[in-house]
């Protein structure tokens, strides 16, 4: 075989390997989705959303308290992280070229890669250790810290999609920088920002590690912020490592709910971002 043919053969071989790599990644994805849907769907029923957990040994019951708990934790995290992240994002987009903005952007990206369990320890030290009690507030705090960099970076990126002529136009009409940013730029990017934030919330809702020793768990129904509270993810964890068949069934149902939420928001975010990009491309 001459050299040219050998090179061509090698090239074809590597191209084939690359295609194979895509298949190799799609197989586990398909397997995971298959099992979650198959196992989860047969276990998911109305009781799952409306009933409380049954005591050990009894079958049936649901995760009503955990679902409410997750919603409350998300609400606390959102209240803490969204305003701060949004305004930080405005700064990054308005004064993006300064050295300080580069530092903030860098820190936000690095913070995004800090293990969630470490964020959990931090929230534990802030809100659990001083009062010696696990609480919904501590859990929400941990999740809020995780949301903050995502919200800031999403806001910045979507504001950068808005044409600069809008800002220039409003400044030319005599608006202050603040009026131009919050009155013109943010509203123009709002649909995208809101979807980005919803996606961040959906992803954070799937977090377990930072909740293990902040909001802990609770077998009862509670809405108090200073008490431990159940969450969907911690409940799935507890049930998954338990020896009971019926609890495993419910863990799969919980996993299906988590995956469905993330999936719907991922698709939604993709659609909205695309539409925005098309809208602002001139």
């Amino acid at each position, binding site marked *: 075989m001459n050299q040219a043919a050998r090179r061509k053969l090698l090239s074809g071989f590597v191209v084939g390997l690359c295609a194979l790599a895509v298949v190799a990644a799609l197989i586990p994805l398909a397997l995971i989705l298959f099992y979650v849907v198959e196992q989860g769907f047969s276990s998911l029923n109305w009781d799952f959303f409306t009933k409380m957990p049954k005591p050990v040994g009894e079958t049936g019951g649901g995760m009503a308290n955990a679902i409410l708990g997750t919603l409350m934790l998300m609400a606390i995290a959102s209240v803490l992280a969204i305003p701060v992240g949004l305004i930080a994002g405005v700064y990054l987009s308005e004064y993006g070229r300064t050295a300080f903005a580069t530092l*903030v952007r860098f820190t936000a990206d*690095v913070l995004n890669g800090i293990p969630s369990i470490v964020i959990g320890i931090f929230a534990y030290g802030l809100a659990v250790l001083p009062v010696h009690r696990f609480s919904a507030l501590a859990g929400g705090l941990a999740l809020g810290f995780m949301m903050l960099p995502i919200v800031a970076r999403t806001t910045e990126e979507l504001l950068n999609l808005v044409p600069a002529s809008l800002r220039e136009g409003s400044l030319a009409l005599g608006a202050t920088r603040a009026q131009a940013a919050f009155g013109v730029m943010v509203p123009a990017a709002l649909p995208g920002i809101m979807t980005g934030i919803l996606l961040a919330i959906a992803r954070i809702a799937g977090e377990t590690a930072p909740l*293990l020793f902040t909001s802990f768990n609770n077998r009862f129904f509670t809405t108090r912020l200073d008490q431990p509270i159940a969450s969907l993810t911690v409940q799935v964890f507890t049930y998954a490592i338990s020896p009971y068949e019926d609890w495993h069934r419910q863990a799969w149902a919980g996993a299906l709910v988590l995956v469905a939420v993330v999936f719907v928001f991922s698709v939604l975010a993709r659609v909205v971002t695309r539409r925005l990009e098309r809208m602002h491309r001139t």
Partner: protein
Amino acid sequence: MRKPPSPRRSADDRLFRLGTGFFAFLVVLLVGGIAFELYENSRLSIQKFGFHFWQTTTWDPVAGNFGALPFIWGTLYSSLLALVISTPIALGIAIFLSELSPRFLRTPLAFLTELLAAIPSIVYGLWGIFVLVPIVRQIEVHTPDWLKKVPLFTGPPLGVGMLAAGLILAVMVIPFTSSVAREVLKAVPATQREAAYALGATRWEAIQAALRYGRTGIAGAIMLGFGRAIGETMAVTMVIGNNPRINSSLFAAQHTMAAVIANEFTEADTDLYLNALIEIGLVLFVITLVINALSRLLIWSVNREVKVEAVTKAAATALPEAAA
């Protein structure tokens, strides 16, 4: 003639800049706060054990003896294993999506691989316990005896252990590495490939030219995946077996830094125990901070180069277009 901005307006703008800048500063403050607090809350352990903490292997909460070497070992072992499995696959995906894929497949395939990153860790863990671990156990049972003499494959077929952890981590890390590597390849100027083709290169040789051009960014992408693997908690703790004993075997149940924190934090009944766990968290924080910072710098360095190039290229092409 334009009037100069009134003093009130420029004062408004300054306030706006300071105000929004303060909120941006909170992000930086958060990282500093984490470092400070973790250090404060692990002082007991740092003072008592010093560097010894990271050199000894006894983890005995009852006697109050803490050595964290098995956890470092387990974290590095599982993360490197995940890296070895995931890197070729992730790079293959990135190359396929940026260089080879037909256009209509590109977006859906990218979406699907990135969906792997969106699945919650706890779902990976659940799937790991009930689907992956039984499969791994079967593999271990059917390993031929002569192979079991190799230190890498010794021990009883438990199913849970290093192999299961490495596999699940690899799947979780793939989307991070591949999407960043894809961005890097996308940022490599087309002239690199065109030049290679013009010299008679085959497809793979042209891809190699692009890979070489973006190698710092690719290295950054791989490091980013490594950082993810090191910090991953739930899925690993559910399949690794949680046994704090250093073992070279893939089949052995082991432990990681993140897993021991997740498992024992609420059980820590003495201050020293709690401080020891937080010290592990502190080191986990420092390691991932350094790895993430390095990987971001590598990725950014490529992007900046590419941006400069794009500007000069735009300037070069502007003239003929205007003439036409």
